[in-house]
């Protein structure tokens, strides 16, 4: 087996890595944003529930949730390994993304909300048109961090037999006895994926940045 075959075998797992990330990250963002809105604007009881949610899902190792969803819960609904993996990573990520969005909402000061309401906007409108657009901009740098984490965590679905990059590296490493080379190839692919994503998000951050004179 030559090196080209070797690399292309591992690289073909990228489809799954990217697939899992593209499900987990947006799912986490959607859930996380909704929960963050409840956390910040939903009153004390909601905040307590959200805090519990955050503590639980940031406390459980993702792979345990993965196992629970795939081996226990999905007995009833029959989720494929790919979906069970993607969704559990999405749920775990939602807890982190909730904290990111929450932090961003809180640092767009309460004064902005007050100013919007003074103009006559309802609370919902003020959040929608004044707080969120500013919070999104603040959230991009920490979100970029989370994206990198989810890309790397996507490798955990290997535990369910999804042939993504890490699993493929293990398999080809075992059959060729070239473990070092196999894992190095995997590392290179992850590095490329993460740096590409970070670049795209940096670009987005710059594009969305609000002009100002120093």
């Amino acid at each position: 087996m030559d090196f080209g075959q070797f690399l292309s075998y591992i690289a073909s797992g990228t489809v799954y890595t990217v697939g899992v990330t593209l499900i987990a990250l947006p799912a986490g963002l959607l859930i996380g944003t909704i929960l963050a809105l409840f956390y910040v604007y939903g009153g004390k009881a909601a905040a307590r529930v959200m805090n519990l949610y955050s503590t639980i899902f940031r406390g459980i190792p993702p792979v345990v949730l993965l196992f629970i969803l795939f081996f226990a819960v999905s007995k009833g609904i029959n989720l494929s390994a790919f979906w069970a993996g993607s969704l559990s990573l999405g749920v775990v990520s939602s807890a982190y993304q909730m904290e990111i969005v929450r932090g961003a909402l809180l640092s767009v000061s309460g004064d902005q909300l007050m100013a919007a309401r003074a103009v006559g906007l309802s609370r919902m409108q003020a959040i929608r048109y004044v707080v969120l657009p500013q919070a999104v901009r603040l959230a991009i740098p920490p979100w970029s961090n989370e994206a990198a984490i989810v890309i790397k965590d996507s490798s955990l679905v290997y535990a369910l037999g999804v042939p993504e990059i890490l699993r493929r590296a293990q398999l080809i490493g075992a059959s060729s006895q070239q473990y070092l080379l196999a894992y190095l190839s995997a590392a290179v692919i992850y590095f490329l994926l993460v740096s590409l994503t970070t670049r795209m998000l940096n670009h987005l951050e710059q594009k969305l940045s609000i002009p100002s004179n120093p």
Partner: protein
Amino acid sequence: MPKPILTIKNLTKTYGQNVIFQNLDLTVNEGDTIVIIGPSGTGKSTLLRCVNLLTRPNEGQIWLDDLEITAKGTDEDQVRQHIGMVFQNFLLFNHLTALGNVKLGLTRVKHLSDEEATEKALHELSRVGLADRADHYPGQLSGGQQQRVGIARALAMDPRVMLFDEPTSALDPELIGEVLEVMRKLALDGMTMLVVTHEMGFAREVADRIVFMEKGYIVEEGSPDEMFNHPKFDRTREFLWKITELYGKKEKEAE
């Protein structure tokens, strides 16, 4: 007969054990400019926020024209449309241009079409002398310009009354004049205004009445002439002397 636009009766506001003001009465007539002065922590900002329903008073009533806005079941958003508010720290929406700041209430609250809103917003911006800065973001404007956008934003809603909470105290001395100039013009145009400020020049020249608040009470109110030249209480005289001294110095520095 002067027509009251804003009537405040028996207003009491407490934060926990802390009584900010108690049984406060104040009437603002149509076209009047009322200037409120008083030491820090007296409850001036709290009073304005109560009027705008940004905080709820504990007791007492407030009428806007004939509508009791403190009554249960009042549509707060509806009320706030008719009361313009200008903040000490401008509080422009940072992610929107000057035009966007003024348009937001027009499109989202008054439901004007984009075109109508733009036209109206440009008109308000030119009233405060900033038509040429319409597409600048707050971060690209000076403090004075930002505050003028803040005024335009409030004016665009065609409010019955404008509230100003120390609109110039966050500004560098050389930028105060342009904001006061806009306010002076507004007063001359007949806008009803309730202004918390320590700009005594403005108060003397523009105010119909000056209200001196201290420790949650209205100590004394009267025309500028009464307050500056024949105050009933020593405390009023002392306070006026102090701030004239303080702000007079600042004004000189600016020149």
